């Protein structure tokens, strides 16, 4: 294995570690929300510092590889993709942290019936499954797994679209709890963002493996 190969392998391992950590953050914030578990939410907030530190480390490693090895072709695409995947993972971590903060900040649990109405559990499960696909795509250079993500993102978008109507309906009902509704609507938006960021990761994986640019509808999926 050449020196550059060793560095690239190490970078990929770091990226996979980051991905695992962020996936765990999303999974914990879902459990914290549904189970109204303050301790778990606090854990997500504490772990966010590790996510940030790992982002900086991966950024630095990418910078060093670019400066020292001048990679080309697939190696260059991998480092460029790694920079963007890293940044998207960090933002997913930020969104998980924000959701955990909602759990910490409200004084009473979100009633489960509202969580159900907003389909938050379903959204979180879809987002987690997208993250799993992205992990498989990255680990095994499997662009078919990457492409599964696009369809799942459409599902999240559809639920997200319904959320405004759901809020209006709930506000018009007898059981009006505006603060809860607004918080839950924000949470829906954040999970939708997690979906978008995972989709970005998927596009970067396809760029790295197939040299295709899918962003902004650039090429056919």
């Amino acid at each position, binding site marked *: 294995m*050449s*020196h*550059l190969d060793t560095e690239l392998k190490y970078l990929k391992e770091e990226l996979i570690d980051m991905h695992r950590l962020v996936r765990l953050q999303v999974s914990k914030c879902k459990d914290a929300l549904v189970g109204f578990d303050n301790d778990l939410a606090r854990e997500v907030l504490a772990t966010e510092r590790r996510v940030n530190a790992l982002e900086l480390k991966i950024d630095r490693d990418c910078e*060093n590889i670019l*400066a*020292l*090895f*001048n990679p080309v072709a697939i190696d260059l695409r991998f480092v460029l993709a790694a920079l963007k995947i890293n940044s998207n993972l960090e933002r997913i971590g930020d969104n998980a942290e924000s959701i955990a903060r909602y759990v910490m900040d409200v004084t009473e649990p979100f009633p489960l019936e509202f969580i159900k109405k907003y389909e938050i559990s379903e959204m979180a499960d879809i987002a987690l499954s997208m993250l799993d696909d992205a992990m498989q795509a990255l680990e095994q250079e499997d662009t078919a797994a990457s492409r599964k993500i696009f369809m799942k993102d459409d599902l999240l978008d559809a639920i997200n679209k319904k959320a405004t109507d759901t809020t209006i309906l709930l506000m018009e009902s007898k059981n009006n709890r505006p603060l809860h509704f607004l918080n839950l609507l924000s949470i829906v938006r954040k999970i939708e963002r997690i979906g978008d960021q995972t989709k970005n990761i998927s596009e970067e994986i396809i760029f790295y493996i197939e040299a295709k640019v899918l962003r902004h509808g650039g090429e056919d999926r």
Partner: protein
Amino acid sequence: MNKIETANVNLHYGDFHALKGITMSIQENSVTALIGPSGCGKSTYLRLFNRMNDLISNVEITGDVLVEGKDIYERGVDVDELRKKVGMVFQKPNPFPKTIYENVAYGLRVNGIKDKAFIEERVERSLHQAALWEEVKDKLKKSAFELSGGQQQRLCIARALAIEPTVLLMDEPASALDPLSTAKIEELIYELKNKYTIIIVTHNMQQAGRVSDRTAFFYMGELIEMDETKMIFTNPKNLRTQNYITGRFG
């Protein structure tokens, strides 16, 4: 641990002040790249460590040059012994007009070793270390000149390794080679640093980036900056270093 240290080394070729007060430490089992424009003193500095500069008339050297803690310019130092410890590989491959086998065995023979089995074992080991064995094992009795330029250079590295030096000096070892042979030499340097302290002079900055742990930038006989290679190539402290590595002068 520092394998090599220089303190306030000045070197004059007659009136020309080629090295100006160079103080540097080089760690054991590491690769140090010396970079800088032509005439900056990097090759002169490299040749301090096996006293190659002694061969040039009118040279005057002051300051301390320590290899493994001993001043190699002290009176009474055995230069032949020093050169066993400090091997050198030059810009152009320079095999002897002998067989591949004899090229590697040469250093052992001139050092009085006659044990055939010992020589055979050492030749094979050195060719392995130089990543050349697989390519030459069936033609050891053929002339070294039958090898390609890249193979000849690896043969010269094997020849240097055969006498088991601890320091390896390389003066632009890949500048006369094609890109594939260059890549092989660079990988070899990366492998060898586990066992040897390597100092390499190179004009190719990407090469310095790829192979070295630390990089020293020389300019007009002065050591301008020395740091971890990744620092030199991402955030050099001195503007002259930045201008040189970004190709803005030199």
